[in-house]
């Protein structure tokens, strides 16, 4: 490496692939988080929509 070359950043090691394989399993806490996520980004009229009981 030449003296004036920029030093590439050290990003550190990635996660072991098995970590995300296990993380792909959906549980109740994930569902609650997703509903909160939806409401956080929803237009006003859609807030709470995912929790409303559907009509038949």
């Amino acid at each position: 490496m030449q003296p004036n070359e920029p030093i590439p950043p050290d990003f550190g090691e990635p996660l072991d692939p098995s970590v995300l394989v296990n993380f792909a399993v959906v549980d109740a806490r994930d569902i609650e988080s997703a509903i909160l996520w939806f409401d956080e980004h929803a237009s006003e009229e859609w807030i709470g929509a995912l929790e409303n009981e559907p009509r038949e």
Partner: protein
Amino acid sequence: MTTPIITQVNYDNSAQRWRHSSDGRFVSESAVNAEMFKHSDATHSMLESLTQRLYAGQLQTSQWQAAVAQELKSAHLAQAMFAAGGRANMNNAAWGRVGQTLKEQYGFLNRFAQQIAAGQVSEAQALARIQMYGNAATQSYWSEYAERSTGQLEWQLSAAEHCAGCVSNANGSPYTRETLPNYPGDGGTECLSNCKCTLSRI
């Protein structure tokens, strides 16, 4: 005293459409799709921010990976529930479909992270690639939408520029859920996860 949240829309299971709670009018398809794309844009913004922080040295690769994975999980689950008409309409099979999609996306993410850690990806390249992950959350919306469709489906081109694959899909309409060649945003057309096309039940 907290202010109760008054939801202004309800899902009609018979019609498979959202209705305005106040007067029962259907919410237009374009309004529903706009809300879906709004959530997709939110995911994109978060992933872009995380990637910028990674390259600014504020996050390590593993932290970035975990945060991206969490954002993707929330986005995919929420979009699937939105397409289904809410949490009450989801079942184990539907949750399983999202889990499978996440497993596939996380496989891509693992390889992406390995390349970043090896110094093989510039910031510009990383920002371009992470955008595709954000857009791919619409895949969970459309796969759930199609899965629950018992009649015909029409592939509708977006107003934006579209690829040859999407034009072909549109020309091949209508489909059933079994004959649909792919879902918008699932990578099956040249525009990959940037696809802004939509499906419509006819």
